[in-house]
């Protein structure tokens, strides 16, 4: 009998396990760690201490980081608010704007494939009397700008559309969305977590009023993020969500996480310097992986628009193979699956379902997230291993056998359970 696991050996130079889940988090770049180190021990001051050198040095480091973050997104330093991460940034942006502009209107527009940090925040606001429109996406994962146009009414105060999607990697038409929002006098927030540092993001060119970003998605530390809040044309006001001390110009109280902020700044600086080269390299690795899988396997399905796409992302469904069993066969490769069995809720990915994919195709999906430290040797190994496991699991799959015999699976009355 065939053995599912462990018949493709790792070649020399490939160390297991392989991390290829860089949308979830990224390892800290050693250069970032180096920049952070002094701020844990010797330069430990509170950036809010105004009367001694410990405080001044910490403040200096924070302001330097603020410049670094601002530079990466085309903003000015005064427009950057440090937070604990992008979930907080999204909460602060959406709740803060909703509260501040309540007099003007109560309508918010977002889309169905947003991260839960946005969706759950919007759901909470709905309970407080706000009206939220969740725009659908097309089969390629992009929103239809006409849908957005139609959704904006005289009560709309905010549009929140993510820059790039964390599961399928598609890049929304941000510049166009921002332009429309500005024409209509509506604020535009974008969750830029997956895009910032990976592709060029410029808040002026993109017409973004408020932008969330995170440290640990760009080879910086966890527990730190930022929110860009536009100061001119228009000047955006945000109602603070955390009180106590008036840090960050009153928008986010709490002692600043100096080492984290230094790390975020350094990560932004490196991303700015290396983005062009890195995105080329990751795009070619990604295309190599895709091409290899597509040429070896039938019934593979690429999810999401590949033209407007993050360099390191590939989301593929290996139809007639269930995602969790696939992950089990490649247990020394860290990737994610849209399968229900891998989630706490036992529901398949809502992002893939929003594309109109059947649950069966969603169950079969794998998200590859290539990053700065992945190599071509790793990509080759991952492809070979995956091909081997998919083929073996298809030998085990009654669905694959039936399809090969020409049976239309949609015509079968499956006994639900």
């Amino acid at each position, binding site marked *: 009998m065939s053995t*599912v696991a462990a018949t493709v050996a790792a070649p020399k130079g490939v160390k297991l396990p392989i991390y290829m889940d860089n949308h979830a988090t990224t390892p800290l770049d050693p250069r970032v760690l180096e920049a952070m180190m002094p701020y844990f021990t010797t330069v430990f001051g509170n950036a809010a201490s105004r009367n001694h050198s410990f405080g001044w040095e910490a403040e200096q480091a924070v302001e330097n980081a603020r410049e670094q973050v601002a530079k990466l997104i085309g903003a000015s330093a005064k427009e950057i608010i440090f937070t604990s991460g992008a979930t907080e940034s999204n909460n602060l942006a959406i709740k803060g704007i909703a509260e501040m502009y309540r007099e003007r209107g109560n309508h918010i527009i977002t889309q169905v494939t947003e991260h839960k940090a946005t969706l759950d925040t919007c759901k909470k606001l709905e309970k407080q009397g706000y009206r939220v429109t969740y725009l659908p996406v097309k089969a390629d994962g992009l929103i239809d700008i006409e849908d957005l146009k139609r959704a904006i009414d005289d009560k709309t105060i905010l549009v929140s559309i993510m820059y790039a999607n964390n599961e399928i990697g598609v890049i929304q038409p941000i510049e166009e969305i921002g332009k429309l929002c500005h024409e209509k006098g509506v604020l535009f927030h974008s969750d830029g977590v997956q895009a910032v540092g990976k592709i060029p993001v410029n808040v002026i060119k993109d017409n973004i009023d408020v932008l969330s970003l995170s440290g640990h998605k760009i080879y910086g530390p966890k527990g730190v993020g930022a929110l860009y809040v536009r100061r001119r044309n228009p000047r955006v006001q945000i109602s603070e969500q955390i009180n106590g001390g008036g840090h960050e110009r009153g928008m986010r109280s709490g002692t600043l996480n100096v080492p984290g902020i230094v790390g975020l700044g350094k990560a932004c600086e490196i991303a700015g310097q290396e983005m062009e080269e890195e995105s080329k390299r990751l795009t070619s690795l990604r295309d190599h992986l895709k091409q290899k899988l597509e040429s070896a396997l039938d019934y593979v399905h690429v999810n999401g628009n590949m033209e407007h796409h993050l360099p390191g992302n590939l989301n593929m469904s290996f139809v007639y193979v269930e995602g969790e069993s696939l992950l089990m066969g490649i247990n020394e490769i860290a990737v994610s699956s849209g399968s229900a069995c891998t989630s706490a809720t036992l529901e398949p990915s809502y992002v893939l379902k929003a594309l109109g994919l059947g649950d069966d195709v969603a169950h079969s999906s794998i998200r590859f997230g290539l990053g700065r430290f992945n190599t071509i040797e790793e990509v080759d190994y991952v492809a070979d291993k995956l091909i081997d496991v998919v083929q073996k699991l298809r030998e085990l799959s009654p669905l694959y056998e039936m399809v090969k015999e020409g049976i239309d699976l949609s015509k079968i009355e499956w006994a639900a*359970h």
Partner: protein
Amino acid sequence: MAYSDKVVDHYNNPRNVGTLDKSSEDVGTGLVGAPECGDVMRLQIKVNPETQVIEDAKFKTFGCGSAIASSSLATEWVKGKTIDEALAISNTDIVKELALPPVKIHCSVLAEDVIRAAIGDWKKKNGVETEAAAPAAAAH
């Protein structure tokens, strides 16, 4: 999620994978689950008409590791049993043997269902009196 050693063993070395001739008189076929739910099991049994002993069993499963292990184990357990003995196999036996966690209990239920469905199909084909066998999915 951590899998028990037995689940891993069945996943890595699934027993009795394959297909029997579904048109044959002495073969019963059960197909349960649904692709949308993320698991489909097919079990086929070859029954000796004289003794009603299950002489061969083959399975194919689309599903998670626990679903594959449950159906693989089911083929091992039904082989050599009479159909009445096989009908006595319950999902709790499977849960126990494979140390399935609570979220995977449905895999064992499916395995019990597929045994009943395969036996039900064989009984129907052979005009044997049936008492409350699970309905086989309308496969063909």
